[in-house]
């Protein structure tokens, strides 16, 4: 069952919120000009942020998550021999908030796990931080028994006895290691693969090079990443807010969302053998990518967003092109989606496959469409609407079954909603112009968040006392999707591997490495 939730954020006046906000500088929460309200950008002076000791920081973070705050980013920066500076960005009903702490190398940092598990694993891997507390709960332990391991050496090659790799075997696909008995997946391990730390390179490059570099970072979603980068840079430089510019960027973002969802639907249709639906989704995917190319020169939206404004303004010809193309697209997609989501064989194949309960989704820290398919209404366009989405609200859809069918249904509805949103407000994008930006404010922290096709994309920038970039963290939602896929596969059939992977918009041909 699907129900659009209100796009208006809930207001909360509970004391926990107020006590938390007291920890934060009064200059820390920056709202968009206008009536104020939750904005997807936070700029704070570093000197105004209290730096809590590691234990107190984790205790406060734990209290906030228990009280309902959602952690968007939990990041560390190595600070010579004095330890690691911890920064957490949280979404509360009042907007973005930030906490700072310091972990020391000689003392273990308490762990919170749960929704923060993915962040903490990254902190452990990246900075070698010791996290105290119970080890992460291995969901495999209760169902893995020695029989599952009997034959796995045979999977490497037949021995002299001609032992076969069944009924128990080990299957490696991408970063997943599946322990199977027959075709049943008994346990799943998510392997940490080597990553490239390109974010360290970002701080060494001139500011003008960064947009092009950001657009080619890991994961799909160049427009979303470039927008988050531009928001943060404009926040640090004190750039003015321009609604036409925001609508221009929003049009690119929604086109990118439509394209990513269409590609995912096509791959899902092909994985279940529904070739007719796959071909039509692929055709529509090309239509949307080509429209994005006519707007900015790139099928992936490179160059659509630049700090300070836009580079290719939308004029009358482009406006007419967008309207005509999307009007045709809307009719074609309605038929195509009805064919796919209304077909009994498709529903039977997807229903109940790779289901994740709402509570598990919360504990795993799922984001984006997979989270909304489990009943978690997490969407930054609703939680942190800013000026743009407050004027042009966008419905957020949730499903409650958490299976592949729910994930496919969410994507189909989001495509329709995105096209309707573009058609409703694209006229306001006309007239967006670039503006010159001043230098970055020294010793400031900026956190910008944009809801991409696969979830929130969060960029965290910090400047030093000369106004140069000291730290850059570009967080991709893919880091939350892989644990979700592992949980969805556990206990299911090995034949559902491709279907589940495509329902999370993850490619198993890929080994899970990004450019990081």
């Amino acid at each position: 069952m699907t129900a659009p939730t209100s796009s208006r954020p809930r207001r909360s006046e509970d004391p926990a919120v107020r006590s938390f906000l007291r920890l934060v500088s009064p200059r820390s929460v920056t709202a968009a000009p206008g009536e104020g309200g939750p904005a997807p950008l936070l700029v704070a002076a570093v000197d105004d942020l209290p730096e809590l000791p590691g234990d107190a920081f984790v205790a406060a973070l734990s209290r906030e998550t228990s009280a309902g705050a959602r952690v968007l980013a939990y990041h560390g920066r190595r600070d010579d021999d004095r330890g690691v500076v911890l920064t957490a960005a949280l979404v509360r009903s009042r907007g973005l908030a930030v906490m700072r702490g310091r972990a020391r190398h000689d003392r273990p940092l308490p762990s919170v796990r749960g929704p923060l598990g993915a962040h903490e694993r990254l902190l452990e891997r990246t900075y070698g931080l010791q996290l105290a507390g119970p080890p992460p709960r291995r969901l495999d332990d209760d169902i893995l028994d020695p029989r599952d391991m009997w034959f796995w050496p045979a999977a490497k090659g037949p021995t002299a006895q001609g032992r076969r790799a069944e009924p128990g075997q080990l299957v490696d696909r991408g970063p997943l290691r599946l322990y199977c008995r027959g075709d049943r997946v008994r346990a799943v391990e998510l392997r940490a693969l080597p990553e490239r730390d390109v974010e360290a390179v970002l701080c060494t490059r001139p500011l003008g090079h960064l947009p092009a570099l950001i657009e080619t970072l890991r994961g799909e979603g160049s427009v979303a990443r470039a927008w988050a980068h531009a928001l943060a840079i404009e926040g640090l430089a004190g750039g003015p807010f321009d609604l036409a510019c925001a609508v221009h960027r929003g049009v690119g973002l929604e086109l990118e969302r439509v394209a990513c969802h269409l590609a995912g639907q096509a791959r899902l249709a092909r994985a279940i053998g529904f070739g007719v639906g796959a071909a039509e989704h692929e055709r529509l995917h090309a239509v949307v990518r080509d429209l994005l190319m006519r707007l900015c020169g790139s099928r992936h939206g490179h160059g659509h967003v630049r700090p300070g404004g836009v580079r290719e303004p939308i004029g009358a010809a482009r406006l007419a092109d967008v309207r005509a193309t999307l009007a045709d697209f809307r009719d074609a997609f309605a038929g195509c989606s009805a064919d796919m989501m209304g077909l009994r064989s498709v529903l039977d194949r997807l229903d109940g496959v790779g289901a994740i309960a709402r509570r598990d989704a919360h504990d795993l820290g799922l984001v984006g469409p997979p989270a909304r398919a489990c009943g978690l209404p997490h969407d930054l366009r609703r939680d942190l609407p800013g000026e743009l989405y407050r004027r042009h609200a966008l419905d957020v859809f949730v499903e409650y079954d958490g299976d592949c069918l729910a994930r496919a249904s969410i994507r189909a509805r989001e495509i329709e909603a995105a096209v309707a949103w573009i058609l409703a407000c694209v006229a306001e994008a006309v007239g967006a112009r670039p503006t010159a930006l001043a230098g970055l404010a020294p010793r400031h922290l900026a956190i910008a968040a944009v809801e991409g096709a696969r979830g929130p994309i969060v960029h965290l920038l910090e400047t030093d006392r000369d106004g140069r970039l000291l730290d850059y963290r570009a967080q991709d939602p893919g880091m939350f999707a892989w644990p979700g896929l592992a949980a969805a596969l556990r206990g299911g059939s090995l034949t559902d591997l491709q279907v589940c992977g495509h329902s999370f918009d993850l490619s198993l041909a890929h080994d899970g490495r990004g450019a990081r």
Partner: protein
Amino acid sequence: MLTVLRGPRPAPRALPDPRAAVTPGLAGLPVLKDSSCPTACSACLPACPAQALARTSTAVALDLGRCVFCRDCAAACPEKHITFGPEHRLASATRRGLVVGPERRAPPPVAADAALRRRFGRSLKLVRAVLGGCDGCDCELRACGDGHFDMGRWGIEWVDEARGADGLVVFGPVEAEADDEQLRRTWAAIGGPRLLIATGACAIGGGPHRLGPARARGFFAENAPQLYVPGCPPHPLTFVDGLLDLLGAP
């Protein structure tokens, strides 16, 4: 399924002939004006995030193998000597052919290889070597085989296993020794004769995120690609056209 079959006929192919297709709006082949640049001007060079531009005596030369097509150089040029046209046919059979400038306005057309045509002209199975990166190349290469661009009509298909492939398509940054090792293993698993294609700015030129001179890339020193497909990411038609030119397909 019967409902679908009984329903209205699906839309006709959007690209009935990809060889004749054009890409209006694409930021494709750079157009460098004939007029010479002022002697002291080098405004475009520091604007390039990929170090793809070099100053010649009278103008600039642009290495398409490194270019990420961000067009920051066009915005930085005070004389407006650099623009990007919609031409998508950018593939080259040689690395040197990717450098455009006053002497060469566009990469030379890919010459058909008779031996490759005889062997792979009717059926060519390709495997993609994924080395990370932004996934843009992966998305566009997959699109080459989908129902829209449909390179399968020339018998060219993607396969999952190197052992069943005739050629290797490399994309993503080749930076570490482990990448070279992975490429060597994959290359060795393909029985000869075989085809090697380098795709995208990361695989051809090291990518915009490289720290300096390439530390690895020994694989490409040992095995020269037969086809270079530049772009960031390359348009699907760039890949399809370059490959068909190499195979001598009509």
